[in-house]
């Protein structure tokens, strides 16, 4: 029960609860004062998002409280569901059935098993080396060469984004930092709070001040004002959390900036995937947010970069 002993974790979760209470109260007040039909739709979506944040925060807190295994299992499930949403959208053929069974039921659990036992040397190459080559071979063995390259690439891409990249988040639990041992859950919590905070802040700044579209062809809802305001605010948020992390104030700020920027990149790339496949959301599992992949899109980019940058500069 790490939560009972770790004062930093208690404060982070305490802050999160206060933030959610404030957001919930403000959301209800706005809903009571809104009478315009079109504005009402936005407010309802906002409140649906806040409600979903409660659920997601409780699930995440429970996973962290249970200990490292809780986080690994939670992210393994998220990967499985994200992979399901991704594969649904890509043009696989019946002859890919074997390769897909391998991806869902063997490669995904194996990746998280390696993360759980902190086998750095293998979890960093399982999917980019072994699964990459094996899946291409498995699809070739099926004997169906129609759109071979598209099918093989799509399945490999799905695994890289939904499983490999996402698994770097719980992998932070095994990262040892020079002079700090293995700070474990605080690193994970720092990453998740900053990346999700950055998403929310970009959304709020975009709704309040957004005028110039930043990528009209890829993601019409993203604005320059939302990007700059959200990234700046997330950087300040991360810097202010330095006391819970192994970083100094300025280091925490720089890490948060990196997380916010890479997270934005993840959101943009996943929007491009959705545009390409002609959908608005990856799913409808979380009310107001869409699918799992719509919620963790920024994390898929931020997690591996944050992991390797931290390991390179602070690893011990």
């Amino acid at each position, binding site marked *: 029960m790490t939560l009972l002993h770790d004062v930093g974790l208690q404060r982070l979760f305490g802050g999160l609860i206060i933030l959610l209470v404030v957001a919930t109260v403000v959301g209800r007040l706005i809903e009571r004062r809104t009478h315009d039909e079109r504005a009402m739709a936005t407010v309802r979506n906002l409140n649906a998002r806040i409600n979903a944040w409660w659920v997601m925060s409780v699930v995440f807190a429970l996973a962290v409280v249970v200990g490292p295994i809780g986080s690994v299992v939670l992210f393994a499930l998220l990967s499985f569901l994200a992979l399901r949403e991704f*594969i649904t959208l890509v043009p696989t053929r*019946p002859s890919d*059935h074997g390769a897909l069974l391998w991806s869902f039921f063997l490669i995904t659990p194996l990746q998280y098993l390696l993360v759980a036992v902190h086998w750095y040397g293998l979890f960093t190459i399982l999917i980019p080396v072994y699964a990459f080559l094996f899946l291409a071979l498995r699809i070739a063995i099926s004997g169906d060469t129609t759109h071979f390259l598209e099918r093989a690439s799509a399945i490999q891409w799905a695994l890289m984004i939904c499983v490999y990249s996402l698994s770097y988040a719980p992998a932070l639990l095994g990262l040892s930092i020079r002079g700090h041992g293995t700070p474990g859950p605080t690193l994970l919590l720092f990453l998740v709070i900053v990346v999700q905070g950055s998403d929310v802040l970009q959304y709020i700044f975009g709704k309040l001040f957004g005028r110039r579209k930043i990528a009209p062809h890829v993601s019409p809802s993203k604005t320059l004002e939302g990007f700059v305001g959200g990234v700046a605010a997330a950087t300040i948020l991360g810097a202010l959390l330095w006391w819970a992390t192994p970083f100094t104030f300025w280091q925490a700020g720089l890490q948060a900036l990196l997380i916010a920027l890479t997270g934005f990149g993840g959101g943009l790339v996943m929007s491009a995937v959705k545009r390409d496949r002609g959908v608005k959301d990856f799913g*409808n599992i979380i009310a107001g947010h869409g699918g799992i992949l719509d919620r963790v899109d920024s994390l898929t980019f931020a997690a591996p970069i944050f992991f390797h940058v931290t390991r390179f500069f602070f690893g011990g």
Partner: protein
Amino acid sequence: MMASVLAAVAQVVAGSSVRWLGSVPTDGQRVFIANHSSHFDFIVLWSYLPSHLRRLTRPVAARDYWERDAIRRYLAASVFNAVLIDRVAAPGSAAGQLGRQAVDQMAGALDGRHSLILFPEGTRGPGDDLAPFRSGLYHLCHNRPDLDVIPVYLENLNRILPKGHLLPVPMLSRITFGAPFRLQPAEEKDAFLERARQAVRALKEAA
């Protein structure tokens, strides 16, 4: 109990989003007709009906498949309450007798309060397009002219469990229920069957 468990499992595996376009789930008598590309088709369609309708809705299925072993016999008889029809003629029987018998069985099921699930293509296809519909649907509607037919389009189930595979890949699917229609007075058999087929196919593109 068994039915609820099975329905819950089917819902997890298929992860369907369900849309009712132009019809609502009521307990009026109707026949659901759907495209057929996977062994999962009818279990999934059935499991996504509201539970009180599930008890009132009987799938029409092939006797030779569902009576092959004890488990399937149990499921067909006790869980799905399937209407089992013969596909293989007894030696020496007259041509067309099988079809008449099947229509009689379906009409018999409709004498109660039950609705039916029917796959008018007769057999599973590859999933890219619908095969022509068999004539049983026409004869059934001819027998029961006030029967509502509800077209249903099942999307992605052929990718979850394609023909010839044992293990399902848990992809997301979609079930679309369309607007009810009936056999028009004096409507020709082929015209009606083609209209029914187009009604199912149109749901694929429906926004």
